[in-house]
């Protein structure tokens, strides 16, 4: 047994820390000399996971005495919280995306979505108001829409607007700001404006080659359910892995950024807006909960709070990682900064106008 555990830890390190380390077949478990013939990769995988299962079963009693540093435990709690919080939304979004692929024929989309971007983009923006999920659900759905032939401009508008203006988020905002109903209106207007603006920007300047959707597995034979299952599995593994990357980064910053720094910049109106915009990116709070955090930042002006609410659901670490996994890196290095700039500008303008 110890042999399994040691070998397994070696694997874990090379998985997370060192992408270039070699992981030759010889290192796999169990070593060749254990079997009479070289075992198939499937068999070796089964052994590897048997070792992982043993580690999971006995690891807590072996290691919990060592893992006591408060900062590490707080980090671990927040990391697990972000992952578990996102999981149902991710599964829901991936299932919806797979259903779009498996059960809605491509020809339907061609009829349902207006061909002209000038019309399709605002329609997609408003359609975002009906998907009751957070940002983790909307990324795979947007990927599924693009795969089904929906114009990327419209799908990306939907991607941005769905987590920001859906009914659950708006109700949560109203509850968090009980005495400022104009905050709900301002959030709706500013978020929709950003989503539509980015969609139109993509329709005008976007290039198809920036989008790299990972190829779906080709399912031979099998009915629609086989397609549904295969695309769900595929999207979960792609988007899910990147979600964990985002969760790791967000948990680290959540623990590492002392909130005292914030009060120092709250006095200056421009710095305050920028500080909360950056904080929204770093904290990666689910769009259904961010209003409560914004409401607790009472040292900041309502305009800065609004910017926090507009930026958060559209650009954050978790989301950037998720988008990189779904649409590719070339896409995200253009899309995230453009969206961030648009969200800060729209939040500041609408806040100045309405709040």
């Amino acid at each position, binding site marked *: 047994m110890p042999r399994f555990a040691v070998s397994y830890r070696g*694997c*874990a390190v090379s*998985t997370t820390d060192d992408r*270039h380390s*070699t992981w030759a077949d010889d290192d796999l478990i169990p070593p060749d000399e254990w079997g009479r013939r070289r075992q*198939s*990769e*499937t068999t070796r*995988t*089964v052994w590897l*996971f048997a070792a*992982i299962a043993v580690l*999971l079963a006995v690891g*807590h009693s072996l*290691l919990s005495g060592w893992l006591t540093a*408060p*900062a590490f*435990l*707080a980090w*671990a*709690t*927040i990391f*697990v*919280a972000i992952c*578990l*919080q996102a*999981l*149902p939304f*991710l*599964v829901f979004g991936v299932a919806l995306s797979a259903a779009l692929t498996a059960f809605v024929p491509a020809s339907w989309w061609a009829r349902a979505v207006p061909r002209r971007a000038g019309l399709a983009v605002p329609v997609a923006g408003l359609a975002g108001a009906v998907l009751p999920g957070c940002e983790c659900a909307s990324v795979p759905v947007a990927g599924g829409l693009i795969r089904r032939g929906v114009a990327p401009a419209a799908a990306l508008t939907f991607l941005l607007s769905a987590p920001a203006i859906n009914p659950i988020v708006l109700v949560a905002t109203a509850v968090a700001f*009980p*005495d*400022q109903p104009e905050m709900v209106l301002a959030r709706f207007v500013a978020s929709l404006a950003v989503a539509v603006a980015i969609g139109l920007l993509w329709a005008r300047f976007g290039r198809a080659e920036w989008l790299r959707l*990972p190829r779906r597995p080709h399912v031979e034979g099998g009915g629609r359910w086989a397609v549904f299952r295969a695309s769900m*599995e*595929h999207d*979960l*593994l*792609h988007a*899910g*892995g*990147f979600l*964990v*990357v985002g969760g790791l980064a*967000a*948990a680290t910053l959540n623990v590492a950024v002392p*909130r005292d720094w914030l009060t120092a910049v709250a006095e200056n109106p421009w710095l305050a807006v920028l500080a909360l915009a950056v904080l929204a990116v770093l*904290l*990666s*709070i*689910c769009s*259904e*909960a961010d209003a*409560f*955090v914004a409401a*607790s*930042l*009472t*040292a900041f002006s309502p305009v800065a709070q609004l910017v926090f609410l507009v930026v958060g659901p559209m650009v954050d670490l978790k989301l950037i990682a998720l988008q990189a*996994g779904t649409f590719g890196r070339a896409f995200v290095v253009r899309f995230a900064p453009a969206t961030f700039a648009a969200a800060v500008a729209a939040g500041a303008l609408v806040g100045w106008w309405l709040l």
Partner: protein
Amino acid sequence: MVAAVNRMAQGMVLVLLGAAALGCTLASDLYLNYVQGAFRPFLAAAGAVLALLGAARVAAELRRTLRPPAEDGTAEAVAQGGDGGEAHGDPHDHAHGAPRVAWLLLLPAIFVFVVSPPPLGAFTAETGQRAEPPAEAAAGPAAAALEPLPEADGPVAIELKDFLMRAWLADPGLEGREVQLTGFVTESDEGGWYLTRLEMNCCAADAIVNQVVVSGAEAPPTDSWVSVVGTWVPPQGDTSEQVPTPELAALTVIGLDAPPDPYE
């Protein structure tokens, strides 16, 4: 290079992740350390979907591998073709395996089972986002939204955030009443010690720190859970510049076991 995630591994990763989600919702109350109680059915359902999806994949791969070659001449060729594709193909070929980043999906499962992170505590109380008094413009409506404290002969049990709001609004119905607050102990630099409770709206990443200064009682050990009965101490002096943390003069302090749901 770390191996691409072959199909058998894909299935097993999903099974373990699903098992983690199911284990911390159905087999224990661990999920309450991370997310809202109302989240339980959704998390369990997501875990079940993941576990079933993964199990179906594992079963399909096992069938493919274990099918004896004698019965079906093509089976071995198919199996070897599949493995060969993994070993020799382009590592970026997504048609067969998932990308390496999918291995990371094991991390949440490992953390849930091996670390089982505890609820946020004194560390977050010190570094996290603290609840702040409402802005002046908002104070009027916030006061109107407060219900009067329920009539009772003895102390009234209320949430820390409720106590804070009443104390900040200075028209709180707290005068002359005994209240009972429950939370954990953290060190204070304002004299006395803090009774702290974290407020969670969605998941632990959005925790907000609610704190009350407790005076008139010895500080219990940091991070231990206590229930304090006491009376509100109105702030002294000029509070227009800096609002002090609301204070509770303790009458009794009782130690408790940590509650299953540590947040409010």
